[in-house]
């Protein structure tokens, strides 16, 4: 089963002693099947009710639109698994983008991009150290980081930077056949990330830490180092997302990325992650991203008026996590 690769935990056996709240034809609806059904249902409804949905342009759009939220969501998942949260990702997107765009004129493009991603890692390390070493609340640390990094993005350049470099667009617009390169990159991140979570000691430790950090510490695992690693991964993902976004839009703005963290968190939770930590999978998160992007895409295709889009988006999210919740056995 390829699922193994992206599963952040061992497959749960059919669990005796737990009743699922939803059953279909007598069989319990597990999180996975319930969720999959939801995604498939949404896709089917979309295909049936909108002529535009199944056009190649639109499907390519969907793939493109997943990238930013997807990258942020994977990094967020890793942090959420430890029981933390990273509110600073939106600001990191802005910072990484503007720094890359600013450096392109002086440095080779790959190097400029590497610096952008590295800046994300650096911010992640600071967040992680404040959380792990100084035991400060992740919510407030990363909220403060959100403010500070946004400020730094503006300090770096108050005005947007549109690099002349012709290759700057390339990353954001290259296609591999019908599939955008950026989507492939995101997919690779999820693949490698799923492997990391399910098959490496560090990944498994991160999940365990979210379940009970003290137990993990007493088992001889360096909890702090793993927590720092988690935030660094989130920073790296945000940095990458920032570089890709700047390349896609063709211009880097210091003001980009406001409230991006919210969609990323929502994707994780829709995908079954617990904000208390210790539960969540790369696969589920990818599904959550897909659902969020689908909601936006469909509301647009149906021509729903903007404010009603907002109203409906909230309602749909609640319905989705409601279905999600109902297909999970009671704790």
């Amino acid at each position, binding site marked *: 089963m390829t699922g193994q690769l992206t599963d952040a*935990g*061992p*497959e*749960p*056996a059919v*669990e*005796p*002693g*737990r*009743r*699922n709240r939803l059953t279909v034809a007598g069989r*319990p609806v597990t999180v996975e099947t319930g969720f999959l059904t939801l995604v498939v249902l949404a896709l089917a409804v979309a295909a049936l009710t909108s002529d535009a949905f199944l056009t190649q342009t639109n499907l390519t759009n969907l793939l493109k639109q997943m990238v930013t939220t997807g990258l942020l969501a994977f990094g967020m998942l890793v942090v959420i698994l430890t029981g933390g949260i990273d509110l600073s990702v939106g600001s990191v997107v802005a910072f990484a983008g503007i720094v890359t765009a600013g450096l392109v004129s002086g440095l080779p493009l790959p190097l400029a991009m590497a610096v952008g991603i590295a800046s994300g890692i650096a911010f992640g390390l600071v967040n992680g150290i404040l959380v792990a070493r100084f035991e400060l609340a992740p919510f407030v640390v990363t909220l403060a980081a959100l403010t500070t990094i946004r400020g730094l993005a503006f300090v770096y350049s108050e005005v947007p930077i549109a690099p002349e470099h012709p290759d700057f667009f390339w990353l954001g617009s290259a296609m591999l056949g019908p599939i955008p390169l950026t989507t492939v990159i995101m997919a690779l991140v999820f693949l490698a990330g799923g*492997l990391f979570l399910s*098959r*490496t*000691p560090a990944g*498994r*430790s991160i*999940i*365990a830490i979210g*379940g*009970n950090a*003290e*137990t*993990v*510490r*007493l*088992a*001889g*695992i*360096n909890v702090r180092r793993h927590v720092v690693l988690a935030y660094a991964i989130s920073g790296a993902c945000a940095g990458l997302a920032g570089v890709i976004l700047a390349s896609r839009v063709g211009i880097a703005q210091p003001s980009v990325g406001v409230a991006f963290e919210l969609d990323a968190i929502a994707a994780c939770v829709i995908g079954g992650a617990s904000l208390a930590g*210790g*539960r969540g999978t790369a696969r589920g998160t990818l599904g959550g991203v897909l659902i969020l992007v689908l909601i936006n895409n469909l509301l647009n295709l149906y021509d729903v008026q903007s404010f009603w889009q907002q109203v409906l988006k909230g309602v749909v999210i609640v319905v989705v996590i409601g279905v999600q919740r109902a297909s999970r*056995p009671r704790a």
Partner: protein
Amino acid sequence: MTVAAGSPRAGNVLELRGVRKEFGGVPVLHGVDLVGRPGEVVAVVGANGAGKSTLIKILAGALPMSGGEMWLDGARVEPRSPHDAHDLGIRTVYQELTLVPELTVTENLLLGNFPRRRTGLIDWPAAHAKAGRLLAEIGFGAVHPRAIAGRLTVARQQMVEIAKALVSEPRVLVLDEPSAVLAGTDLDSLFGLIRRLRDRGVLVIYVSHRLAEVLDLATSIVVIKDGRVVTTTEPARTSEDELIRLMAGRRLERIYPARRTGFGEPRLRVTGLSRPGEFTDVSFTVRAGEIVGMFGLVGSGRSELARCVFGAEPASTGEVRVGTESGSDTEQSGRTGATTFRSPTQAITAGLALVTEDRKRTGLVPELTVRDNIGLTTLYSTTRAGLLDVPRHRRAVDDLIARLDIRPAHCATMPVVRLSGGNQQKAVLAKWLLAGPRVLILDEPTRGVDMATRMSIYQMVDDLARDGLAVLLISSDLTEVLGATDRVLVMREGRITADLDAEHTTEDEVLGYSIGRAG
């Protein structure tokens, strides 16, 4: 014992008939009958996972039953929530601690029953006074009402749990292994309390693995095996041996293995270890192949000592040495003058292992599977090309699950919280055995573990000791401390007050040192 169909027998407060429970189609209780009259102590005994706690949660309204009937005072009842059960006069002390850790003892006791002023506001002085009175009345006066519950030792938290059930006098008091974490005078207070309640006409349902106290306290004994009642009997008509046989379904020979002789090199050497407010100038040695017991009253500092030896907390002075390796030779720990392990990682690398006393908070990751929990200590040592070697890891873990007989048999992929208490304890033990330690510290390792399993644990520890493992066994169970060890250290108020040969000492002598009566 058959009960006439129709109205329940006169005089019974409580009657369960054919109570069944399944979890997702898997039956756990297969039709349990239980009868209790006022002034009785009905003991429920059975092996780990037999279904005792499940039965009790049904009584408490915390779990719905899948089938069967419950009668109270001749009326058919079906408590759908703990609130319903409260209203029916059923009070329960659960096996797992359920205090709100951030709140004071007073609040934990009186939550929902606060004394109020005329304004409707809570009268805090009156509340503290009431809580203090209640604790004193039932013999737990040592617990301070204003203390934060989460900071108390497990034993004291257990006392608060018991007191909580007695805030208003119950008709039926249900106690799920209340004695597992108590010792000495606290245990006496508990027994005294149960007797007083019994004399006042309260029905007490009592679950325990300590059969001696069951025989001492109970008026009737219900033996459960695999979710069925095998016998209902009375203390006068049975014995510890018989009960064990009934529970395990087989005859068990001797509880403690024969003692070993000829110990090897010193494996764990603790010298002059101190941590202000917790323990002072502690020195002892455990040799290869030796099992050293450590007894003391609640709060005597044993658990803190163990954590400190293990590097989970810093010491202010002293030295810890495993084999020839000493903790942090190169770098003195912190600003203190101590030479100890600076982290559990260091301690584990040197060959130490610590089974902590509070499995829920420091022993398990509740939502993780049994397999993942057990594998935690060897995550980083079972890799191939940087990736976890899943098959090898799985084989090693599953092998231990089988060896320790952790139940149910297919539990490897179950979240560990869904195991019964005793099986959870075994999972913790398995985790540390997997690490292959040279020195094993066990802090109350048999808490809540049934007799048959205890014996297999003793046997296993004995086997390991024969292979050269050094073991420090911290326990509040006097019989265990004397039976399963070679040497007994007694701790009192943070100091070691005696070092006794287990074979040639007595319970009285050990107890004496622990309360400062002797020596």
